[in-house]
């Protein structure tokens, strides 16, 4: 069943067309990867779905509701959770307080002036941290965590809003290869168990072909191919798009780290 429907999205910056006629769907529980060479318009499309950019034209429909012009805050309330290319957490707070903050906001308690924030929804927050394997680090400040762990906390924050759709912008950028596979395995299992649709951009082809149910390829702002990882790997047009790195889409030799 369709969760996210993107129809004919268009965006130009000055004279440069960053996205043109981009349409695709994400189903519940599906992991859809958005790939393309640098400058293909991945981030533009991604930020139009996330609300950080305004679309010039087109429609973004989440679960039957038009969110094309909604602010990021409103999209969050409609069920969009997201992580950022460079992990965004609250560095002055503990890991658990980060998740508590998201829970507080989700339940519209952020104007509370009396009950201390650290007493609010702590159990639920620790539970979310446990799901991403970070329960032991609950009381460690985010500024003292390793980057891979910060990414996990960020995932827990995104999950706190009980999203229907999870947006992950280059979720494994800046992580070690082993951590990458672990984070994506974790994301896939959470998405499957909660029936969350996941849209992610990624440069690491191992991650893309190891974890995506479907792949969408952008080139110069347009969708040039969409399909299962195997279909994409065989697509002649996609191969041309990655010309200069002809083997970019082949399975790596040797044992698969995923």
């Amino acid at each position: 069943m369709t969760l996210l429907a993107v129809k004919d999205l268009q965006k130009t910056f000055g004279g440069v067309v960053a996205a043109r006629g981009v349409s695709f769907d994400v189903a519940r529980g599906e992991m859809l990867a958005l790939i393309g060479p640098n400058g293909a318009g991945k981030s533009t499309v991604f930020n139009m779905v996330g609300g950080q950019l305004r679309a010039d034209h087109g429609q973004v429909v989440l679960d039957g509701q038009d969110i094309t012009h909604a602010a990021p805050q409103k999209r969050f309330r409609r069920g969009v959770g997201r992580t950022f290319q460079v992990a965004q957490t609250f560095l002055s707070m503990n890991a658990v307080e980060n998740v508590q903050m998201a829970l507080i906001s989700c339940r519209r308690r952020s104007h509370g002036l009396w009950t201390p924030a650290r007493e609010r929804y702590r159990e639920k927050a620790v539970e979310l941290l446990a799901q991403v394997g970070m329960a032991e680090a609950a009381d460690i400040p985010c500024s003292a965590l390793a980057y891979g762990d910060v990414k996990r906390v960020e995932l827990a924050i995104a999950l706190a809003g009980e999203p229907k759709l999870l947006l992950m912008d280059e979720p494994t950028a800046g992580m070690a290869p082993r951590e990458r596979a672990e984070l994506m395995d974790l994301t896939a299992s959470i998405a499957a168990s909660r029936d969350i649709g996941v849209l992610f951009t990624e440069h690491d082809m191992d991650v893309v072909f190891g974890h995506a149910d479907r792949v969408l390829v952008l080139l110069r702002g347009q969708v040039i191919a969409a399909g299962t990882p195997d279909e994409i790997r065989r697509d002649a047009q996609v191969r041309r798009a990655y010309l200069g790195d002809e083997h970019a889409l082949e399975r790596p030799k040797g044992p698969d780290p995923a």
Partner: protein
Amino acid sequence: MDPSFLAVQALSGLSSASSLFITACGLTIVFGVTRIVNFAHGSLYMIGAYTAATLVPRLLELSFGPVSFWAGILASAVIVGLIGIIIEVLLLRRIYGAPELFQLLATFGVVLVVQDLVVLVFGPEDILGPRAPGLRAPVDILGRRFPSYELVLIAAGPVVLGLVWLLLRRTRFGMLVRAATQDRDMVASLGVNQAMLFTGTLFLGAFLAGLGGALQIPRVSANTGMDLSIIAEAFVVTVVGGMGSVPGAFLAALVIGQLQAFGILIFPKSTLVVVFLLMAVVLAVRPYGFFGRAEVVGATHTVGIASHKPLPGRVYILLAVVAVLACFPLVADAYLLKVATEILIFALFAFSLQLLIGVGGLVSFGHAAFFGLGAYGSALAVKWSGASMEAALPLGLAFAALGAGLIGAFVVRLSGIYLAMMTLAAAQIIYAVAFQWVDVTGGDNGIVGVWPATWASGPVAYYLLTAALTLAAVLLLKRIIDAPFGYALRAARDSEARAEAIGLTIRLHRWLAFILSGAAAGLAGGLYAFSRGSVDPSLLGISTSVDALTMLLLGGIQTVTGPLVGAAALHFLRDVVMPLTAHWRLVLGLIIIAMVLIFPRGLAGTVQHWREERA
């Protein structure tokens, strides 16, 4: 209206625009390259005026003529440029990476130091400079006399603009300055000698400030108030033009010059208000001025309170504090009680600022506005409606909260240095109103006869009242800082993108923070008015805002108790050091600079850090 009058008025507007542009141009170039808003730019302007007013007459004695005069002006500007180099090497170089609040405070420290040094070097008297040889006779403009020196000034602005343009476009140094203004990191990674570039920029900036000051000597005598009056106007010009943009500064100076020249006809008493209102309107429409660009806010800009484990036994600590406060009158005499009352009031004032800066990351540089609004609100209630203290205090608080709501609505759209400048401008508008609306506010003399109710009029009673209200307000604010609201403010400070992505309405939270903080500062202001029996415009001045910031800095911006410790420390320093020296500003300025350079955690912050290191 008489056309000749309009022409003369427009011409004098042009000449003040020229002077303003020359000075502001230096400020905006320095900001563009170093990203430091140099408060001391006005001091350099003042040094330029004093130097020229002293140097030029000597040169004219040696050989009377235009050559000596203009050579003296240029020499003064060069001397100021060299002073700029000294400031860069000794101070600015060490704070390029510091949070902007520290940069503003450190350069304000230089302002204080220079104020005393100028009196030491040039003496306390104003110095009237000579008139320019060859330009003494007025010229005839449509039948009206107009000073010919002003015509030279009108030409000087475009000439300086042209020369600066040539320098920036046609020289290697200028290319580097433009490159650094666009992307400082990129220039650094290209292997450019940054130290030389920054020192050169400071020389150019200081030279222009000195030139601006030196050119004033035939019009106004060099005086010790020049620095703050010009810096306020230069800030407006750079902010309206867009920080870092030279053409922007020129355009803004033109607009402001004309606005002042003709504003005086429409609102004879409120030229200051008109200028700052222009800034408010421009920033409301274009948050980065005419030609400015969005600031890239780096991680270094957020210093503030972080989460800590609740202190063990904090209930007992609180009880001990209450006991000490309550028992203090048993051992203290009337003078000590007066001092303690003032410390408590300023502790509350500084603490209210901590909610904005330490928690929200909102560097408010005009917090005196809310303190002053509270004080004036209470005083006006007493004077005009004969309100009792019990009614006047809440009225003052409400007045300040209302003002904070109004100012906050404007500034929450801004960020970083623009927010600091806008809050400063807002405070200056209110200062100007209090200063110039003599019929209502009593002008410079202020309002007297603001006495507490009889039951609270003794030193002991008023001390206890202040202690109780301060304690209650501080505990309430502390509670709010720990509550979801305070956490939401911190969340928006740490990462706006993340805060939005979890559905927090950042502007609304920040606006409410302004109101809460303003209300607390207003309570402090009201208490202060009744403790002294009077109010005057200085309560709204820049130095009151800086006092609050200094207390925060002394105590430690990263701690909740910091402002309370800082208020006590600053008062202690004042009471101990001020009687010993005639150069209090020099001492205070050096203390502020030293704090920024070697002790940025502040007193409470250092103790807390030490405790955590041990744990």
